[in-house]
């Protein structure tokens, strides 16, 4: 092995991509040739600095895949959303991060997101400020509630619908299919049986409720409620929105449809 061969193979040697025999020959050359040994040291240093470099890049904008399957009721969500909560859904679509005053009080690292977006979103913020957002404790958990202008349901109905949505999400993250089935209508149970992967989740320890709308009652007697949640330790990593259609059967409220938005 001459010096030229050795220089060509140094990078592979450092990466341990050579055969044992090749490595042994190269090492023997380095032991005898000061020039190649110095070159080896320089190359090894720069390679070792390069190796960890990529981990230092933390993108601010993070890709979140949209679920492949989003259950939609016949006729779609569109008209219902338009009829019941147009302004609310517009806010939810950009995430919890655009609710400045209240979000700062949430026990979640929202402030970081807000700081990044605050300057860009002046117009949006004005719209947000027009909505009433307040913190409410539901089942011992503090959640930001977004008032839609047409929510006005009796408080006990509203609370029952909100609690059902939260219990449903908790059961999703507990991976408890039986509990989900017990909270659902026949339609939901059939969908759950057909597509369990769209309902059952892992990683419940990171679950936090960010925002929830007041329940709204559509003309056909269906309650609509939208819940914004995160399930990652890092707030910016994983935010989702679950859209619920809930039916009242006697005194019981049951989930009829659950659809997801990223």
């Amino acid at each position, binding site marked *: 092995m001459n010096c030229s061969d050795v*220089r*060509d193979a*140094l*990078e*592979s040697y450092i990466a341990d*991509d050579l055969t044992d025999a090749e490595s042994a020959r190269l090492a023997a050359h380095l032991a005898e040739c000061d020039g190649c040994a110095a070159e080896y*040291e*320089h*190359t090894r*240093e*720069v*390679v070792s*600095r*390069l*190796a*960890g*470099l*990529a*981990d*230092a*890049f*933390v*993108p*601010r*904008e*993070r*890709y*979140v*895949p*949209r*679920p*492949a*399957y989003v259950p939609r009721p016949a006729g779609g969500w569109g008209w219902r959303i338009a009829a019941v909560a147009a302004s609310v859904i517009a806010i939810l679509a950009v995430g919890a991060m655009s609710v400045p005053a209240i979000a700062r009080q949430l026990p979640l690292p929202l402030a970081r997101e807000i700081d990044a977006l605050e300057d860009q979103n002046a117009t949006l913020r004005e719209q947000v400020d027009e909505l009433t957002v307040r913190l409410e404790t539901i089942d011992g958990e503090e959640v930001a509630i977004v008032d839609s202008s047409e929510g006005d349901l009796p408080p006990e109905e509203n609370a029952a619908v909100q609690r059902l949505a939260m219990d449903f999400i908790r059961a999703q993250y507990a991976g408890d299919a039986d509990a989900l089935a017990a909270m659902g209508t026949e339609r939901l149970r059939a969908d759950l049986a057909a*597509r369990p*992967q*769209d309902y059952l*989740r*892992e*990683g419940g320890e990171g679950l936090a409720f960010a925002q929830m709308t007041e329940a709204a009652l559509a003309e056909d007697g269906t309650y609509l409620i939208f819940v914004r949640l995160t399930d990652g330790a890092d707030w910016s*990593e*994983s935010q989702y929105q679950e859209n619920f259609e809930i039916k009242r059967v006697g005194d019981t409220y049951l989930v009829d449809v659950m659809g997801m938005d990223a």
Partner: protein
Amino acid sequence: MEDQELVARALAGDTRSFTTLVRRHERSLYATAYAITRSQWDAADAVQDALAEAYVNLKSLRDPARFGAWVSRIVINTCNTALRRRGRVLPMEEPPEPQAFVWDGPEDGIDLMRAIQTLSPDHREVIALRYFRDLKVADIAEVLGTPAGTVKSRINRALAALQAALGRTGQEVSR
């Protein structure tokens, strides 16, 4: 969990598995895109576009164990698209400090990145694929459609050029 297993789960409709894959690869994909485009904004767009494309086309990945090389190829493509597009618009000036990403590494790493940015496009590309994406020479050859021998010598020349660039910027190569 191996990439292979996550790809299989994602194909079965488990969105969270794809998110896990993304989180595993996004930093090095971003670093690669930044090395190639030399623009934080173009890099961010190129990675977002590439991941969206990977998600939609995941079923076309024949060997799930090779997700890393496959998604690298997609990022190279979206970077090239960004570079072509940039030929037609006035580029935004790069800020002195990172804005599109948070730098979570040693300070001298930024100097190293600046030194990489002074290399030729071919050299930046192989440095990124080899050391950021951690690909084998054979995989880089496949991603770039270039013979392995050419890739190997290009890596050697790129390392030499990088050492020279570090010397020029007053950086000690050895530390």
